[in-house]
């Protein structure tokens, strides 16, 4: 029961922010990430302190970063999009085809095209999920098959290779501004914008509300279908953007581009502390999760772990993260119950 006298300890906003940061789930993975980078750098200073090492540390996660942000937005609404790998593949192929047709195409047009292709796919997913009210897990699993199959059918054994891409686009893959790769900058802008939206816009908060309790959201009068649809469109668009990234970085596009990356994106989101059944988690967490996932793969050989055990380490990381989440939530629940007794 509530107490009557409003006695709240006064604390400054700064203290509160600090407390929030210190208690946040994201801090745990940041610590793991920093520790891994530090260890790897201690063993091999070139891991970070060399032009290539610095660039790759920042550049390598950029594709997964973008995908994880999109996936996070869908997951927070208690949905999931397994078709993003296929979407990425289609986007990459479209980008390649555009350059094959006209090598002088502006980079901006290519970005727009990739994002648009992804958004269309996302809209199809979103429509199927919201209009027919079917579980997104199955729908997007089916769409993953359909899209990949359609792509393979169209592409066949064709492969768009480095030679087919104009130099200015290939260069984009490694271009740096103040030593920070352009792709990473774009990815970080995406993280910032989406994170800001989810944190401070009404629409963003509604996504959390929908994921927290979809029935209550409908009862409350939130435009749940529209928001979920929007989340899928955003996720698709970001998968499309990741397709452009992929062609820029790898300078190749074929029927298998982006295969199996969807599970990595889901893993990044889970590692980042986003609840798989929606309602909680942050874009920052998902982004750090993606960073960690990619970085750990790069760092393991340096840390002396054979590449054959890398998959197992990633699996442990995922399991460890969700167990950690569970332990934290149980502890919090206990605290709340005890607080009730003392109230």
């Amino acid at each position, binding site marked *: 029961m509530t107490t009557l006298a409003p006695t709240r300890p006064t604390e400054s906003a700064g203290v509160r922010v600090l407390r929030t940061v210190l208690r946040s789930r994201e801090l745990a993975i940041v610590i793991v990430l920093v520790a891994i980078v530090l260890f790897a750098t201690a063993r091999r200073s070139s891991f970070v302190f060399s032009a290539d090492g610095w660039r790759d540390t920042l550049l390598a996660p950029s594709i997964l970063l973008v995908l994880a942000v999109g996936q996070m937005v869908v997951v927070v609404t208690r949905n*999931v999009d397994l078709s993003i790998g296929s979407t990425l593949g289609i986007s990459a192929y479209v980008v390649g085809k555009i350059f094959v047709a006209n090598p002088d195409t502006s980079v901006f047009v290519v970005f727009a095209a990739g994002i648009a292709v992804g958004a269309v796919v996302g809209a199809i997913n979103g429509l*199927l999920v919201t209009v*027919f*009210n*079917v*579980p997104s*897990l*199955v*729908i997007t*699993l*089916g*769409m*993953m*098959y*359909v*899209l*990949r*199959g*359609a*792509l*393979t*059918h169209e592409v066949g054994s064709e492969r768009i290779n480095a030679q087919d891409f104009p130099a200015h686009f290939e260069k984009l893959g490694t271009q740096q501004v103040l030593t920070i790769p352009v792709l990473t900058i774009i990815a970080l802008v995406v993280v910032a914008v989406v994170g800001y939206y989810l944190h401070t816009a009404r629409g963003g908060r509604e996504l959390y509300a929908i994921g927290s*309790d979809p*029935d*209550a959201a409908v*009862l409350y009068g939130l435009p749940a279908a529209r928001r979920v649809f929007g989340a899928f469109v955003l996720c698709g668009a970001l998968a499309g953007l990741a397709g452009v990234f992929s062609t820029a970085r790898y300078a190749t596009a074929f*029927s298998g581009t982006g295969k199996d990356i969807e*599970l990595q994106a*889901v*893993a990044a989101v*889970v590692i980042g502390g986003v609840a*798989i*059944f929606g309602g909680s988690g942050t874009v920052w967490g998902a982004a750090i999760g993606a960073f960690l996932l990619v970085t750990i793969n790069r760092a393991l050989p340096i840390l002396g772990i*054979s590449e*054959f*055990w*890398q*998959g*197992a*380490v*990633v*699996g*442990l990381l*995922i*399991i460890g993260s*969700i*167990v950690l989440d*569970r332990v934290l939530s149980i502890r919090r629940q206990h605290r709340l119950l005890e607080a009730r007794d003392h109230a």
Partner: protein
Amino acid sequence: MSTQTDGSAGAPARTYSSYSRNVALRVLMTREMAIVVALVVVYLYALGNIQFFDGPLTLFNLSKEYAPILMMALPMTLIIITGEIDLSVASTLGVSAAVTGVLVIEHDLSVPTAAVLAVVVGAVLGALNGFFVAYVGLPSLAVTIGTLALYRGLAEGLIQDKRIAGFPDTWQDWPTERIGETQYPNIVIPVVVLVVVFAVLLHFTTFGRGVFEIGLSDEAAHFSGVNVARTKLVLFTLSGAVAALAGVYVALKANSVATDTGAGFELKVIAGVLLGGVSIFGGRGALHGVVAGVLLIAVLNSALQLDGQGSEVIQIIIGLLLVGSVIASSNLSRVRALLPRRAVKTAARSTTTPPTPTPGDDTRKVVQ
């Protein structure tokens, strides 16, 4: 039918019919039957129109390739009926194949011993999933995405760059030898046995009833004394063990084991189960539907390949079937909603007194 005098009411005894529909409707008008019919139609169509489909190798190849998928689909059916999912089966299969291979080829164990150990390992891996899901309370989707990576990683770590090949001839040949004069390989025998075992387990035991109850409402099952956690643990353990058995088979059939043995099978298994009429929300499904669902994918695959179609066409069709079947089954309630008058009439006729209002039907769960 006996009347019971226990209890209190002294009112005249009523009698009840066991079923609201007759046998024919009950058996024929089901989602499972729709799949069975689709399977028969596709099979007959292929027989008549696809060159070589009637050849002696078709059924043989089909059984040989889809035996592991069907095996893994059996426990997966029960798991999905409880409302959970196991994405790690193919990785468990990979670990089992690797264990079998390493034990037989590197450590000279006999195949049966290695197989038993591999199945034990599989059961342990499955139990680990089950423990996380049932006792730690983690969502199975997240757990098994994690173990999908973890177990595949274990298989990679076990095999590394070693060449695991060359099982003893007798064991290596047995699974794919034909049964007598038939078109079927030996592996069909254990698969049929497993199908029967799982069908009985799901449909004719108290355990199976519990599985359905958990899927329909795990809370109600818990309140009726069903040990929800233990049931889930058992199912995931079974899933691991059966996947491991499939792994032994795949290793022997291929006579070699690679790090990616069985990779991607989990999606085929899940597609087959869902196509077979099992609801992804849990609580609904039947094993014959799942068998038909897996076979439908197998026959379509075989027919399309014989017709010269690439694997991508098969992928597209499986994907469309999956999406289509889920949309169809989820939205039939809407179709039903379009016929409310008829529904009222039917129900009114079926009860002896007019129905009474149901308030609080839509009471909702309290925030936890």
